[in-house]
């Protein structure tokens, strides 16, 4: 029923390793992308002309940089950023380098997700906070981020699934994980069952991320829960 290749991969634990590598790359890249993207998104939101600290010039410059990185297709960005990866982690191959690439590609995306989540926070509530004398830092920490929490979590789930997709593409230039198994053992050596197994496992991972994210988001949302 299964091809010889599939059984060999399975018995040697390579598929299991692929799952682990994919999960590891995705989670670590998402976490690092939020380290950059979350503050960037907050700055984009508050320096907007409707924000609590309008700084049009800074907003324009940051917006341009974010748009620049977001408009490059990931596969091209990856190739272009190989020297940067080498500079940061010393290698341009393997998962360490792939994580650098994923973070470069995902941070601007995360920043826009965060920015739009924060935009949903009711302006009236922010004014109420201002009218009580809160300063901008307190508004960010005590009003903007807490009020946007459910939306931020939903955004993080979407970002994570996107990064998972990117991580599979990284296989084409030397990344590992399920993407690499599907391409080199499934596609290139004509073992469709290996490819489909990778597809199936990816779907499961996405489902788990999505379901866990939904639960956390629901728990933090105090607006509608009866």
């Amino acid at each position: 029923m299964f091809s010889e290749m599939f059984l060999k991969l399975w018995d040697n634990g390579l598929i299991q390793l692929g799952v682990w590598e994919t999960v590891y790359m995705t989670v670590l890249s998402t976490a690092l992308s939020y380290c950059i993207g979350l503050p960037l998104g907050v700055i984009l939101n508050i320096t907007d002309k409707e924000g609590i600290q309008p700084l049009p010039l800074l907003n324009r410059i940051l917006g341009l940089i974010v748009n620049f990185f977001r408009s490059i297709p990931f596969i091209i960005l990856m190739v272009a950023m190989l020297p940067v990866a080498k500079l940061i982690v010393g290698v341009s191959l393997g998962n360490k380098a792939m994580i650098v690439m994923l973070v470069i590609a995902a941070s601007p995306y995360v920043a826009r997700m965060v920015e739009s989540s924060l935009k949903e926070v009711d302006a009236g509530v922010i004014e109420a906070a201002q009218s009580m004398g809160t300063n901008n830092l307190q508004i960010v920490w005590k009003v903007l981020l807490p009020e946007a929490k459910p939306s931020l979590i939903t955004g993080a789930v979407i970002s994570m699934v996107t990064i998972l997709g990117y991580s599979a593409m990284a296989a084409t230039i030397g990344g590992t994980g399920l993407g690499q198994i599907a391409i080199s053992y499934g596609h290139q050596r004509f073992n469709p069952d290996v490819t489909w197994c990778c597809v199936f496992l990816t779907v499961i991972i996405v489902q788990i991320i999505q379901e866990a994210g939904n639960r956390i988001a629901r728990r933090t949302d105090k607006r509608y829960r009866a």
Partner: protein
Amino acid sequence: MSEKVLEIEHLVKRFDDLTVLNDISLDVHEGEVIVVVGPSGCGKSTLLRCINALEEIQGGEIRLKGEAVSKKSRNLPEIRQKIGMVFQSYELFPHLNVLDNITLAPTKVQKRSREEAAEEALALLSRVGLQEKAGSFPRQLSGGQKQRVAIVRALCMHPEILLFDEVTAALDPEMVREVLDVILGLAEQGKTMIIVTHEMQFARAVADKVIFLDEGVIKEEGDPDQFFDHPKTERAKEFLRTFTFERKHSHS
């Protein structure tokens, strides 16, 4: 006369080319209740928003106990703590329960201890009949309850002056009363307040002074009985007529 809490001198507010408030001057003394009435779009709400520096002003000056209130003031957060504002649509923090809504600013802005702020919040809540709602979230409350919480939230900051911006306009009729009763109670305690409202009976009962605002200028100001019974200007008469109803033809 008691001490001046708020002084407004020649205030001008423009949105681009549109002048919304034109040369407004007004003094509010300690313990005084000023009610601002006028047709929609006359600038009533904008006036309150200017007093709290939620809007930038284009001319004139606003001072709270001698300190300039302006979006450009360096100590704006400190001044704003002394100006309580209650909004038409409550503006409670949806993700915080009632108690945390009230104690957020006292603990984070005024750096008061959580215990002390919570104790005062509960005392104030029980005064407005909501002590058992301390742990509820805003979505679990009726409009009237939300607005009473919003009033308590403003009171807990110990403001020098309270601003009420059409606080009953979004409420069902039977909830208007419970909110207005709270405000009447505050007036009796001698709180200094500026109230923008469309409830004329209430205005008359609560006001020490009525301001009639129309097209961005103060058309009339004075004693409430005088204003409601014998308005001086034709514009005010016309405005007050919109609140009375008569049948032209009775059934025979």
